[in-house]
């Protein structure tokens, strides 16, 4: 409620309807903003032209911390490939779009990259935007490359969607078997309350119960939440043998709080545990996790570190690897003198099937099969305690 006495005269102008001139200015401005995207006209490809691919990542908003790590991975892959002469002599270029983690922005970005830039392949992240783009990818025959999200539904979302990392269920099945065979019979679940986290929760529950384990409790955390003490206390009092953790961020603070509390249960998880903040916290000593073979060769990791001044973590190596895999597929398309289209890249991926570029991966389906290890963390190092070989 506004009190009438408090309005001043100079607001009078505001009340008058917009004049013709402001209206015109506004419309011009609008036209300019919309047209802005169209300025970069797609050109005919020639031998020296860069090969342009797209990437739609959450570069701002709540998921941005992960999105930026993924972007680093792509940038690293591109710079190494180009330093080595590009793909068949042509430099590789990735056009980045920010979807803020929102499916609708992802759709706009997808259409922009495809219809204005003519990219045949788009890297994506997170289940939500990726699932939203999947039907479009099918319709437009554009290859969509998910290098990080592990929700089960991604495996069958589109024939053009390739997951360069196994879905979480594959890792979790391995983990559940290992735990039972080592006498761990009861478990609690701490998961992130989003698509990936709740899928992981369901997968673990199903896999662990199937091999005879019992789930004695589950607690969600919201993305970015860092105070885990109440949940940890609750678990500590119900005394499970293990606590299965499915978080994509905030693992550092979790390790700190575990270190302070020293609970009786063992912490177990998936490849997400490959987080430097977690590894460097003394709290992570003794933790077990499955690990898709993601350790980049030492030379590559060192080069990554010198480029960005941060350790090559999970997302960095996954997206670098995805870049390498796709580059190899594109190289095959070029070698066969076919146009670089989504359809041809897709065919090339299945033709090559077994990739051994940075991290070994096999594409029998749209989802990569990779070597899954069980690793134990000790003093910031991961020690493989059991390796499950490919095939």
């Amino acid at each position, binding site marked *: 409620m506004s009190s009438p006495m408090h309005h001043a005269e100079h607001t009078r102008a505001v009340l008058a309807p*917009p004049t013709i001139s402001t209206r015109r200015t*506004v419309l011009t*401005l609008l036209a300019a903003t919309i047209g*802005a995207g169209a300025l970069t006209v797609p050109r005919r490809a020639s031998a020296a032209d860069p090969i342009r691919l797209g990437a739609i990542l959450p570069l701002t908003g709540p998921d941005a911390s992960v999105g930026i790590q993924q972007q680093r991975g792509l940038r690293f892959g591109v710079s190494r490939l180009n330093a080595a002469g590009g793909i068949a002599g042509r430099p590789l270029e990735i056009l980045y*779009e920010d979807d803020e983690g929102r*499916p*609708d922005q992802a759709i706009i970005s997808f259409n922009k990259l495809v219809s204005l830039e003519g990219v045949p392949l788009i890297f994506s992240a997170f289940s*939500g935007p990726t699932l939203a783009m999947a039907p479009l990818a099918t319709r437009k025959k554009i290859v969509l490359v998910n290098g990080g999200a592990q929700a089960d539904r991604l495996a069958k979302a589109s024939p053009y969607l390739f997951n360069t990392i196994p879905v979480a269920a594959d890792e979790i099945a391995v983990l559940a078997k290992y735990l039972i065979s080592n006498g761990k019979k009861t478990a609690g679940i701490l998961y992130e309350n989003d698509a990936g986290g709740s899928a992981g929760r369901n997968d673990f529950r199903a896999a662990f119960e199937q091999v005879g384990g019992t789930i004695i409790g589950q607690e969600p955390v919201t993305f970015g939440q860092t105070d885990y003490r109440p949940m940890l206390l609750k678990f500590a009092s119900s005394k499970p043998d293990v606590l299965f953790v499915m978080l994509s961020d905030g693992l550092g603070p979790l390790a700190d709080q575990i270190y302070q509390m020293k609970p009786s249960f063992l912490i177990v998880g998936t490849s997400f545990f490959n987080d430097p903040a977690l590894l460097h916290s003394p709290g992570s000593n003794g933790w077990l996790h499955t690990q898709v073979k993601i350790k980049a060769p030492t030379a590559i990791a060192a080069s990554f570190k010198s480029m960005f001044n941060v350790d090559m973590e999970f997302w960095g190596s996954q997206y670098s690897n995805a870049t390498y895999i796709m580059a190899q597929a594109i190289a095959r398309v070029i070698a066969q003198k076919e146009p670089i289209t989504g359809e041809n890249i897709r065919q090339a991926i299945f033709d090559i099937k077994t990739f051994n570029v940075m991290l070994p991966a096999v594409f029998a389906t749209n989802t990569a099969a990779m070597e899954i290890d069980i690793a134990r963390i000790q003093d910031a190092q991961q020690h493989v305690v059991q390796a499950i070989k490919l095939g």
Partner: protein
Amino acid sequence: MDFFLSYFILASIFVIVGLSTNLLVGVAGIFSVSQAAVFGVGAYTVGYLLSNDVMGFLPALVLAGALCLLLNVLVTLPSLRVSGDYFVVTSFGIQLLATAAFTNWDGITGGASGLAGIPPADLFGWSVDNSYKTLALTGVIMCIACLGFALIMRSPFGRLLLAIREDELAVAAAGRNVLRAKVEAAGLAGVFAGVAGGLYAVYLSFIDPSTFDLNASVLLLTMVVLGGARTLAGSIVGPFVVLALPQALAMIDLPTTVAASARQGIYGALLIAFMLFRPQGLMGRRL
């Protein structure tokens, strides 16, 4: 072409939600930051009904509208009892509760991973399965919504809402029923948001809780702020500009690591600048 189509389709959908927000916030002066939640209920209703083949698109859209009418009346009720900032907090809370419900009510909403594979709209056996048809559908509904908004604004009801925004006590003293008018405005805004939600669901074929969270509510407000309150032109310009902004800002050349944050920061700076220098938005009235 698809880029422009998808832009226009989403913009036309957001114009409808924008009209809803404008009606509630700009016209009736009910400062709600939970419009995205109502939008989401519309989307989930249509998404659920179509995915499970309960009914056709049109009846589902009508049901979504009706449900959101009721819901928006319910969530606006506290504003009749508490005023100003108290309602802002209530509204923030409703938004958070809605997100929690979208995320945790797995059976209906698909939980955090959302509803995927929502079938396209069908109108009397005619499937709206490509971008052109979708644009025609959303465009027509947008025009109907705009017409409705214009009719409302010209009617005595519209004048009544404008008066309520300024001074509820004076409206009551003039013998008019403030409570009823507010409830009606909320209900109408609910219908707009619900219908828009339904269109959103069938166009994207995928919905998840993150689309209807607090950030989305703030985005809806930004549209009203930029476009301008209480005018049809403002309600149309707002969504078009806000959806084009990321594309326009992407042209500013910045190091990739900071570009993204810079862009979001620019949104914030725009909000401040508009409030300082152009509180009436591009083509509207003072908020």
